[in-house]
C-alpha cells in the first residue's frame, strides 16, 4: 500500500532535497581509453568497424588514427565489480536516495530510459572523469509495474583537459512492486507461465482486491444511504457521501448474461473462456469467469455461487460455479 498523506509529504520533501545536487565527487576512470578494452567491446558487440581496431585503416580514415566507439562512453568510468557489492552504508548520494525510497517501501528499481550525446570521438590515452547530478524526481506515478517515482540523472563526461566529451541522461523508476517479488527459483525451475492481466491498483479499487486476496467477495456500501455499489467509486451517486465501506457478498447469484471468448487469445487465459455478468442476490452485478461448466451448458438464469480462487501463481479472482 501507499503511504499516508503526511508521511508521503515528508518523504517528498526529503526527495526534493536531492534535486540539482551531484551524487558525489566526479568518478575517475580506472584506466585511460585503451585499445584492448576497445577490442573486447567490439568483439562483444559484433562491431567490425576498422576505425576502432585496425591502426592502418584508422590512420587512412577521417579520424587519422584509432578511436573508441562513442557508445562506450560510460564503460570508461564504470567502477567494475565493486559496484555490485552490497554495502550497509550508501556509497554516494544516489544510493542514499534509493535507500530512502526502499525504506519507505519503494523497494524495486527498473531503468526506463537512457540517452547519450557525444562532443567528440575518444582516442586511446584519453583520461575520463564523470560527474552525475540528480536532475529531477517526478511526482508519485502509478505505473503498470507499481506506484513509484521516476528519477532522472545527468552525467557529464570530461577529458584530461576538463573539456566535455559527452553526456548521459538516465531515468529509473523506483517503485512499490504490484505483486510480491518472485522468490528465487531453483536451477531446474520451469520457465515462468504466462499470467492473466493483473488489475491495476489505485486509490479507488485496491481495497476491493485486498479483500478478494483474503478469499472474500466484497460489495461497496454507502454509509450515507445504504446503497450497494459495484464497480466501486469514490463517491455515492445517490447521496454524494464519501463515507463508504463494504459488505461481504453471500456469493449467491445468477447469470444475467455471458459470452464465450475465442479470439483473440491472450497468454495466461484458457480458451474457450466463459465470461459472465453475474447478478448477485444483493442486487449488484459483476463480471467474472464461469468455471466448472461446459460453455454449451451456460445459460441466462443459471444459479451460480462464488469461489474466490487462485487463478494463477499470484492472482486471486472471484469466479463462479454452477450452484448445484
Amino acid at each position, binding site marked *: 500500500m501507499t503511504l499516508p498523506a503526511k508521511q508521503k509529504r515528508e518523504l517528498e520533501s526529503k526527495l526534493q532535497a536531492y534535486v540539482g545536487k551531484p551524487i558525489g565527487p566526479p568518478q575517475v576512470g580506472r584506466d585511460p581509453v585503451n585499445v584492448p578494452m576497445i577490442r573486447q567491446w567490439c568483439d562483444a558487440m559484433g562491431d567490425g568497424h576498422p576505425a576502432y581496431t585496425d591502426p592502418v585503416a584508422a590512420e587512412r580514415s577521417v579520424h587519422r588514427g584509432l578511436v573508441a566507439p562513442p557508445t562506450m562512453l560510460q564503460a570508461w568510468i564504470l567502477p567494475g565489480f565493486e559496484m555490485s557489492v552490497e554495502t550497509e552504508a550508501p556509497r554516494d548520494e544516489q544510493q542514499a536516495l534509493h535507500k530512502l525510497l526502499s525504506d519507505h517501501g519503494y523497494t524495486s528499481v527498473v531503468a526506463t530510459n537512457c540517452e547519450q550525446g557525444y562532443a567528440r570521438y575518444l582516442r586511446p590515452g584519453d583520461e575520463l572523469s564523470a560527474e552525475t547530478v540528480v536532475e529531477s524526481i517526478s511526482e508519485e506515478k502509478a505505473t503498470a509495474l507499481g*506506484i513509484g517515482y521516476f528519477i532522472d540523472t545527468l552525467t557529464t563526461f570530461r577529458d584530461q583537459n576538463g573539456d566535455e566529451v559527452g553526456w548521459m541522461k538516465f531515468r529509473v523508476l523506483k517503485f512499490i512492486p504490484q505483486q510480491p517479488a518472485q522468490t528465487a527459483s531453483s536451477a531446474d525451475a520451469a520457465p515462468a507461465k504466462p499470467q492473466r492481466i493483473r488489475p491495476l491498483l489505485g486509490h479507488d479499487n485496491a481495497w476491493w482486491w485486498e479483500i478478494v486476496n483474503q478469499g472474500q467477495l466484497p460489495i461497496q456500501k454507502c454509509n450515507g444511504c445504504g446503497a450497494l455499489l459495484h464497480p466501486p467509486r469514490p463517491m455515492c451517486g445517490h447521496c454524494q457521501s464519501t463515507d463508504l465501506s463494504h459488505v461481504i457478498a453471500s456469493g449467491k447469484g445468477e447469470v444475467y448474461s455471458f459470452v464465450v471468448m475465442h479470439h483473440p487469445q491472450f497468454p495466461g487465459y484458457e480458451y474457450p473462456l466463459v465470461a459472465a455478468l453475474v447478478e448477485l442476490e444483493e442486487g449488484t452485478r459483476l463480471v467474472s469467469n464461469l468455471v466448472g461448466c461446459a460453455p454449451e451448458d451456460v445459460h441466462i438464469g443459471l444459479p451460480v455461487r462464488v469461489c474466490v480462487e487462485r487463478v494463477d501463481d499470484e492472482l486471486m479472482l472471484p469466479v463462479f460455479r454452477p450452484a448445484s
Partner: protein
Amino acid sequence: MSSPLKDAAAIVGIGATPFTKNSGVSELQLASECVAAAIADAGLAPTDVDGLVTFSLDTNDEIEVARAVGIGDLTFFSRIPYGGGAAIGIVHQAAMAVATGSARAVVAYRALNGRSGQRYSQGVGGDIVTSDLIHWSWYMPSGLMTPTSWVAMFTQRYMHEYGAKSTDLAQVAVSTRKHAVNNPAAFFHGRPLTIEEHQASRFIVEPLRLYDCCQETDGGCAVVITTPERARDLEQPGALIRGVAQASAADQEQMTSFYRPSIATLPEMDLVARQVYAMSGLSPDDIDAAVIYDAFTSIVLWQLEAFGFCSVGEGKDFVQDGNLEVGGRLPTNTHGGQLSEAYIHGVNGIAEGVRLIRGTSTNQPAKNDHVLVTGGVGVPTSGMILGKLD
C-alpha cells in the same frame, strides 16, 4: 422554442484517403491528405479554414495538421472523447463553432492506421494508471477486454429478451455487404456475402461471428462545416445539419454499462434521438436513409429501435425483407458501412451521409430529403439528421 443550432451549419466538403490494410505512411500524412481533400472538395483554400476538431483518440495534433495542410490561423480547436462515440460529436462541435462565429469554416477529421498500427481488436491496456485503466481492471483479469467481447455481452442478453437470432444479425451483414459490392472504395468491393457464409464464419466471441464484426482499416476521412450563408456560395450542394446532439446516459460506462436495470437498450442513443428529432422537428417517418454506426451487426438493431424505426425488441424483424437496402424502408449504410467499406471510426459514414444528400452515393436511393447519421455504440455518443440546403 427552437434550438439556435437548428439549420445553423452545413457540411460542404468531404475527403478521404484510400482505405487499406497497410498504408505505409504516418497517421499524420493520412490526416493531412483527407483534410486537404475535404477542403478542395468544398472549393475552399486551406487558408479559408480556421477551425479543426477531431477525436481525443486521434494522434494527429490540430496544429500539426494545420501546418502540414497550410491552414493558417486557427480560432477554434476541440476534441471529443470516447472512441467512435465522437463520430458525430466532432460535427456537433464544428456546427456550434460556426453558428456562434467562433470559426468561419471548420474541418472535422479522423485518421488512423487501424490495421497496421494500433488495432482496437487487440484489447485494452497501458502503462499509466488512470481512472480509465481502473475501469478496465474490472474486466481484464476475466479476459473481457476486447470491443467484441463487451458488445457480445449486451448482444447475448438482447437475444435472450427478444428472441433475436444469429441469422437476424446475418441480415444486417448481408444487406450492408450488398452496398459494398457496388462501392469501389470499399474493402469488400465486388465480394458479396450470403447468410450461409455468415453462419459458417468462426465465432470471435459468442454469440458474435467474424462477419458480425467491422473492418480494421488504415485511412482517414474529413468533412468541412460552415454556415448555410457561406455554403450557398460554394461548389457543392451543402448538406444542412437539421439536428445534431451528443449524449451520455445515467450509469454510463465506456463499453461496459452492465449495471443498468436493462442492458438490452441504449439509453444514450435514446437521448440522442430525442434531441435530434426535437431540434429538427422531424420524426422517423421523415427519414429516407441512414448511416448507422456498425462496428458490430447487433448494434444496428438497437439503434433502429432507439430512433423509432421499430419498437424495442423488433429490430430483428425490421432488418428482414431488404428493408435496409436501396428500395427498402430505410436504405442503411449504402457505402457498405464499417462492416464492409472501412472502419474510420464512423467518419466515413458522415461522408456517405453527405453523398446521400448530394445524390452521389454508389447506392443512391431515389428519396433523399433527410438522412440520419449516428456515432459509436456502448459509449457516450452522438448523432445528426442531414437535409438539403435551399
